[in-house]
């Protein structure tokens, strides 16, 4: 079968913040650049980021990139690579000012500078006191950022392939990456994008969990493609959760609800936080509240048919106060829980929000993997940035507003590295003879299989398994069972059947292909989480508690290392954390406390 081949200097998969930022570097360098996206670029999930972007501009008060670096290392619970963190924090001012020049409408101070607001975890002078470091455009920072960068790309003649889904990474026998196979959704046609540089900017995979704040589009397509091409996934056990998402929907309920007097209750209507945090009760820190909720659910005191959520009760509050102080919460209850929160409690559950791990990269944006004795050998022709990549700057937990910074800095550096490599002479390499065989076999299997598994049911089984067994608070026995269960779900995910066989706009096929990506991420997460026998950052285990020997359950002697999950044989290797920054002294290990 003859498959059309489109030749570009660079192909970028994903048109969110990281993809658009990479594309600017490549197109403005005069390189022929294609960007593939499942949706129109400004419909990417970057739009949902409201908080801001961190940069130590010092516009409101004194700030310094080394202080930002300290906060990031501490946030990461020392699992972040300090060379990459230095690189990112040092670059922050530059990428924010560039964005301003692209037309980003940042909020301003009276004297016209970029206004900076405080944000949790942002401190001055190495953790001394809060500092205003977050740059925002009202509560639509991600949205404004995407628009500014999309316009810049239009000006630079970036070629967009909108409503195209990349399917598989093309690697030759020597391991070089030569592009991707992709499907045009309007026609169902499969096309080869043959490129000198391939950049993944496909975002996170939060949809592996039953309760997730992530939009439906976050199906980990880049991670799935990398895994199928034999590239390991790094630190996949680390996922950031919010304590209160609407059960079954994932829509966030602001923590302000508890601040205004909201009470968490279990199936007996008990105010269970009194047992876990007798003083702070429902106002305890996010980690403590999430763990308490997970424990109540695990011990059978959850609510509903599946006993899989708890209740957030504000019925005792004055309705006028709720409508005034918590605008939107009433509507969220009605729309997503079918509950009038003035009269009934809201069903809530800890909800997945952000993926810290991903495709292993150097801070230059080049993808790296073990080869021979080298744990970080460059995969030629392959680059990644943003949530799908693991540089690693977030380590075991991400500092607030560093996600938008990550996609700007590493989107740009991936683009810069690709430009550098192409200018140094990297040519189009010959496509392997079987270049699209695996992709065509997957499509053909989906189209022809009879008696296979249902996509919706398989996705639900995966999401429930991940939520129950690898949620915000983890239990050794549950993780062990979780590994067995997810491997069972994997069998179903490799045996999907779709009823609709049409070519044009076959969303059933697209969703099945997304499912094949999700399962790679789910499996990597479960197996990596089971294997890490300590608590660190967002990975918190019941059997690795806070002790004098291991404060917060963290065990640096054995576990100060990155997980590398190999999708080839479900095995795990580890590589050291880079504790050596580029130019400054290392941030020394200490207990993480706020």
């Amino acid at each position, binding site marked *: 079968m003859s498959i059309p081949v489109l030749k570009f200097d660079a192909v970028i998969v994903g048109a969110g913040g990281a993809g658009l930022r990479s594309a600017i570097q490549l197109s403005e360098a005069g390189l022929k650049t294609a960007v593939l996206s*499942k*949706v129109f670029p*400004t*419909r*990417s*999930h*970057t*739009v*949902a980021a409201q908080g801001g972007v961190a940069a130590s501009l010092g516009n409101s008060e004194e700030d310094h990139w080394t202080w930002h670096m300290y906060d990031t290392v501490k946030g990461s619970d020392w699992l972040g690579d300090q060379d990459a963190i230095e690189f990112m924090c040092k670059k922050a001012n530059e990428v924010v000012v560039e964005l301003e020049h692209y037309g980003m409408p940042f909020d301003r101070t009276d004297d016209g500078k970029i206004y900076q607001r405080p944000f949790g975890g942002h401190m001055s002078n190495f953790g001394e006191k809060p500092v205003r470091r977050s740059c925002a455009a009202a509560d*639509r920072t991600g*949205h404004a950022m995407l628009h500014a960068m999309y316009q810049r790309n239009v000006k630079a003649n970036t070629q967009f392939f909108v*409503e195209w889904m990349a399917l598989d990474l093309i690697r030759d026998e020597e391991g070089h990456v030569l592009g991707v196979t992709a499907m045009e*959704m*309007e026609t169902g046609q499969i096309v080869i994008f043959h490129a000198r540089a391939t950049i993944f900017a496909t975002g996170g995979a939060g949809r592996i969990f039953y309760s*997730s*704040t*992530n*939009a*439906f*589009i976050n199906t980990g397509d880049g991670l799935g493609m990398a895994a199928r091409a034999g590239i390991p996934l790094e630190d996949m056990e680390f996922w950031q959760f919010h304590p209160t998402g609407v059960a079954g*929907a*994932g*829509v966030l309920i602001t923590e302000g609800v508890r601040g205004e007097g909201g009470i968490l209750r279990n199936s007996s209507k008990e105010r269970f936080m009194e047992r876990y945090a007798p003083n702070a009760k429902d106002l305890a820190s996010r980690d403590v509240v999430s763990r308490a909720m997970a424990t109540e659910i695990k011990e059978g005191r959850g609510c509903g048919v599946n006993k899989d959520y708890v209740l957030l009760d504000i019925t005792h509050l004055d309705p006028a106060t709720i409508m005034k102080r918590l605008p*939107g919460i009433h*509507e969220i209850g009605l*729309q*997503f829980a079918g509950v009038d929160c003035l009269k009934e409690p809201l069903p809530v559950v800890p909800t997945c929000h952000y993926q810290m791990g991903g495709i292993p990269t150097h801070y230059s944006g080049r993808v790296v993997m073990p080869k021979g004795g080298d744990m970080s050998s460059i995969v030629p022709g392959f680059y990644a940035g943003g949530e799908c990549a693991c540089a690693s700057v977030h380590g075991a937990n991400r500092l607030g507003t560093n996600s938008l910074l990550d996609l700007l800095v590493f989107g740009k550096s991936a683009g810069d590295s690709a430009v550098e490599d192409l200018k140094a002479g990297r040519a189009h390499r010959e496509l392997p003879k079987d270049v699209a065989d695996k992709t065509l076999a997957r499509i053909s299997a989906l189209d022809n299989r009879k008696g296979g598994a249902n996509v919706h049911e398989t996705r639900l089984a995966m999401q429930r398994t991940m939520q129950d067994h690898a949620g915000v608070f983890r239990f050794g026995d549950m993780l062990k069972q979780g590994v067995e269960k997810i491997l069972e779900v994997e069998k179903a995910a490799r045996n999907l059947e779709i009823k609709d066989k*049409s070519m*044009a*706009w*076959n*969303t059933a096929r*697209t969703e099945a292909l997304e499912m094949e990506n999700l399962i790679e991420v789910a499996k990597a997460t479960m197996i990596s989480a089971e294997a890490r026998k300590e608590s660190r950052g967002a990975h918190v285990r019941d059997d690795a508690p806070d002790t004098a020997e291991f404060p917060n359950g963290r065990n640096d002697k054995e576990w100060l290392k990155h997980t590398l999950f190999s999708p080839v044989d479900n095995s795990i290797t580890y590589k050291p954390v880079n504790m050596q920054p580029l130019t400054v002294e290392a941030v020394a290990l200490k207990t993480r406390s706020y």
Partner: protein
Amino acid sequence: MERADYERLRWRCIRRALLELDITLTRFLDGGEFEKLTDEERLAFVELADMEDYDLWDLLTGKAEIDDPRLAHMVALIRKS
């Protein structure tokens, strides 16, 4: 509406930037509400679906209002679904 046109519209509703819209619009379409619409109402739905995510979400949550009675009617129908 032709199958392909409907499926294109469906894709543009079930893969939004905001989770809130994913859920709301998927529920409307997959709940069979779209099939009950008149041709004119369907056009209004397509127009709404083409909007930027925050603009549409502000309409659906009552934070913003729209003058066009066709679109306002459709917003009310989606909110009820």
